[in-house]
Each structure stands twice: as C-alpha cells, then as structure tokens.
C-alpha cells in the first residue's frame, strides 16, 4: 500500500485529502464528522469578525455531474462564537486548519490571532472569495495587498499561514509569489471561478446574489493550470483545490505540484464517504503506478515536460 502521508505546514497529515473550506465546516460536529470519515485535514468555514447571515437563497445551482455554482455570501457565526465549534473538532483529534477572511490587513491580523488562539494547527487566509463585495476579493487580486495581509498575519501569529489564491486573475503565480515573499508557509489554490446562471423563464439570475462561484469537475483543468504555474514560481508547498473526485484527479494535482489537496463539491456529489473511499482508491492507484510514497511525485510532471 502506497504511503499517503504528506508533510507540510509543520505537520504530517495521515493523507493528503483535506476538507475544503465552506463544506461541512460551519459546525464543530461536522468538522469532527469529516475527520472521522477519513479526511487528512479539515479546513473550517471562513470566519469573519462578526456573524454574517450570508445571501438569501437560492445560494446554489447544480450542473448535473460536472459542477456547481454557489453564492453563499460567507455566512459564518463570527469569531466570537466559533471557538466552541473548533473545540468540538479538536477534541476528536482532528487536524484543523482555521480559515479567516477580512476586509483589510488589520482585520485579517486580528482574526488570525483569535483563530490561532483556538489551537488550530494552521491558518488559511481566504484571499479569494469571488462574490463577497469588498471582502477579500479586492485584496486577493492585488499582489501588493496580498503581501501586506500575509505580512500582518505573520506578525500576529506563530502558527503556519496558508494563503488561498483566487483563479480569477491573469497571473495567479504573481499572487502566490507575493504571499511567499511576505512569509506565507503554503499556498492553496483555487477558490471558485466567477460564474453566472440565468433562468430563461424567469429572466433573472438564479442565485439571489447574481454572480456566483463555479466549483466541481469543470474547474479541475483550471485549478491544475493554476497549481502548475504557481509551482514554477514559488518554493513553499501548494495545496491543490478544484474539482477533485477521483484518484487520478489527486495524482494530477500532485504531479502539477500539490503536496496536499482539498475536496469541496465532491462531498456534495459523492457524500462524506468520499474521504475513505478516495484514500483507498488513491493508494491502489499509486501501487499500480509503482509509486511508493505520494510525496515522491510532487511536481513530477514538471521535470518531464517538453520545454516550450
């Protein structure tokens, strides 16, 4: 059986399959459930300074088999109430990564400090939500602001910091480089891709918020391109996200440069059993490919690539 363990942000994860932020991550019991279902790590819902109700419904549109559109609007109980949820997850022994979002470097730093105090093993900065106006999206598009936020957070906390990058940019690697230069310990990519669905009978966008974010299998090729480009320009570990459902999806991300991956939409499409199922599938597939340790092949597609 291939060794699925992966080490990054100062921790050895039992497998590279993490629960992505925003999925099963609002309540501590759900984080615990995902951990017990076999996730290698669990990322919390992105938490802000104040409770946020999020956008009204409809907040989700599904495309049969290949994707999903959502505009939740970052609902979250706020940092005041959230530590009790993390407590539940940690008491089950879960490897918890705390996700936060803020409007500027200062708010990010304050939130990060409070989140770090809950005992999470690392932070993920949501620099990339494509549909919350003024919340993270502006910041996440500008390398200078990314640098500023990461630097402020790094000053405020001792635990490792992961910068989560938006795909809605012409040069995602420049954002990752900015984060690295400010001391980020890892990059995660990608968040959802800006998208829209219209109901032709009602002549209006389906989501209450109008624009939303695309996730699921359709964005896998986009996420892979981002990870590939980031891997060519930064040295810190990368966590690949976007459309992962099968063992080969994970291996593609790892070959593109990811040291771990996160699953979001697949949890809705295939259920929480996906973590144990996919770990098994992955291990078998690596055996068939004669790979003994997942970590061996991180970035492995770069060395053989035709230079162009």
């Amino acid at each position, binding site marked *: 059986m291939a060794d699925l363990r992966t080490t990054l942000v100062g921790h050895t994860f039992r497998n590279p399959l993490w629960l992505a932020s925003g*999925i099963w991550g609002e309540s501590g019991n759900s984080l615990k459930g995902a951990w017990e279902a076999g996730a290698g790590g669990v990322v919390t819902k992105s938490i802000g300074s104040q409770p946020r*109700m999020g956008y009204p*419904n409809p907040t989700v549109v599904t495309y049969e088999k290949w994707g999903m559109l959502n505009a939740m609007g970052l609902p979250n109980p706020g940092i005041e109430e959230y530590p009790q949820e993390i407590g539940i997850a940690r008491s089950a022994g879960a490897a918890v990564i705390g996700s936060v979002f803020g409007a500027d470097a200062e708010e990010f730093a304050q939130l990060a400090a409070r989140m770090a105090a809950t005992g999470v093993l690392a932070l993920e900065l949501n620099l990339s939500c494509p549909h919350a106006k003024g919340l993270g999206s502006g910041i996440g598009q500008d390398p200078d602001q990314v640098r500023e936020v990461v630097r402020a957070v790094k000053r405020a906390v001792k635990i490792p910091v992961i910068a989560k990058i938006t795909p809605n940019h012409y040069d995602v690697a420049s954002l990752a480089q900015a984060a690295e230069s400010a001391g980020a310990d890892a990059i995660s990519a990608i968040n959802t891709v800006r998208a829209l669905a219209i109901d032709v009978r009602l002549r209006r966008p389906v989501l209450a918020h109008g624009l939303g974010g695309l996730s699921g299998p359709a964005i896998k090729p986009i996420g892979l391109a981002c990870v590939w480009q980031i891997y060519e320009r930064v040295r810190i570990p990368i966590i690949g996200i976007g459309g992962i459902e099968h063992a080969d999806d994970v291996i593609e991300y790892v070959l593109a440069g990811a040291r771990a991956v996160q699953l979001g939409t697949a949890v809705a499409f295939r259920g929480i059993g996906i973590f144990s199922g996919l770990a098994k599938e992955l291990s078998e597939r690596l055996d068939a490919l004669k790979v003994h340790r997942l970590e061996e092949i991180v970035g492995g597609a770069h060395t053989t690539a035709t230079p162009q």
Partner: protein
Amino acid sequence: MVETPNTVTLRFRYAPPAGPGQFVMIWIPGDDELPMSLSYTGDPKGVTIKAMGDTSRRTLSLPVGTLVGIRGPYGNQFDLDPRRILAVGGGSGTAVLAPAAEAAAQRGSRIVAALGATTAPELLFVDRMKAISEKVEVATDDGSRGHHGFVTDVSRRLLAEQPFDAVWTCGPEVMMKKVISAADERRVPVFCSMERQMKCALGMCDACALGPYHVCTDGPVFPASRLTPIAEFGRTKRDSSGRRVPL
C-alpha cells in the same frame, strides 16, 4: 388551494419521482428559496405552506400561475413497513404526514392520527387523514375543536389505548420531544420529520447541521433514537450565520 386561514397548498407538475417524507426547495423569484415537504408526492405534486415569516407569508398571496423554481426532491423517506402507525402532527407538520400515511394505508397499514393546532380553523388535512385512518383525533390550544390542550396529551392516551409498531411525528420540537417520551414508555419507535435552516440541500454547506447530521441529506426523517442524544434537539437551532440560537 387555501387549507386554513394561514396555510395554502401549491400544486405543480414536476417530473422527478418523490417519496413521502422528502422535500423540495421552492424558489419564489426575487424573494427567497425555502425547503418544503411534499404534501402530495404523486402527480401533480404539492407543498403546503404555512405563513411563518416574511417569505412564507408572501407565498400565500402569490397570484395563480406565478412561476416558481423547484429543485429536488431531497432527503430520505418514511419507512412504510410498520403495520400499525400513529401519526402525530402539529400545525403544518401534518403536511408531510398525510402523504406518508396515505402511502402506508395503501400498502395495508392501519393508521391512527392525532392532529393539533392553535385553533380549529388552523387544523390541517383532517378530512384527508380521516379518509385513510382508523381513527383521527384532534386537539386545539384554545379548545375550539377536539381536545382542549396539546396534541401530545392525545397521543399519550392513544399509545395507552392500543399497540403501535411506529409513531410518526412532525411539528414543533418540544412537541416531538413529548411524543418521544410517551412512546418510549411503551417502547414504540418514533420517527421525526425535522426542520432546520437550509441553503444547499446537498449536504455540503452545513446550514442544516444538527449534531453530527445534516437534516437535508441524513434526514429530514430521523429515528428518535438518533435525536435524543443530541444536546441541540428541542433546544437550539442555528440561524443563517450558523450561530446556535434557542428554538
């Protein structure tokens, strides 16, 4: 169709097959999208909506022919195998019990129903339940019809009077908790149709988290044995932000 002063049933043609207990997400364009149990699972399907907050209230006054969006059905179904079923409905909770009771009766089960409401005009589906039940008893808070008091008292009595293989219940959680304790004394298993805030209905967003479960995919029908260990049950729910708030 108006069922009670505060409750209407919307009927619509919607192809995907559905079973009793399941719900759909009903999108009132420009307003909101709400989870609603199917009160009719055949063709046309239907939902029965009670005016609670702003959206549900506005739903009651939608002009006939208004286009609404529907997705689903979602969630699990009532197990129709028990031979002797007690259905205990509080308020609009009867909406989901009616199609389940009909389906079970059709398969030969015997149904006894206890239906409650604040006042007589708000009693839902009494005739519909009578058509397929051995017995239907009602209770109103104001005594305007049937037992003066809670439907839980009625159901306790019915449980004492005759043996049941299962109790089905839907209504306020305090009510369902009382039904459970009465049934526990007689060792009759209880199945509750639960409600929580819902957004994705896909078991993803965590809006409907209830202890270790998601009501949208693990429920809405839960055996009471899974609910009673959960501290939140009957006490707190979560608001749109995910904060725990009292029921």
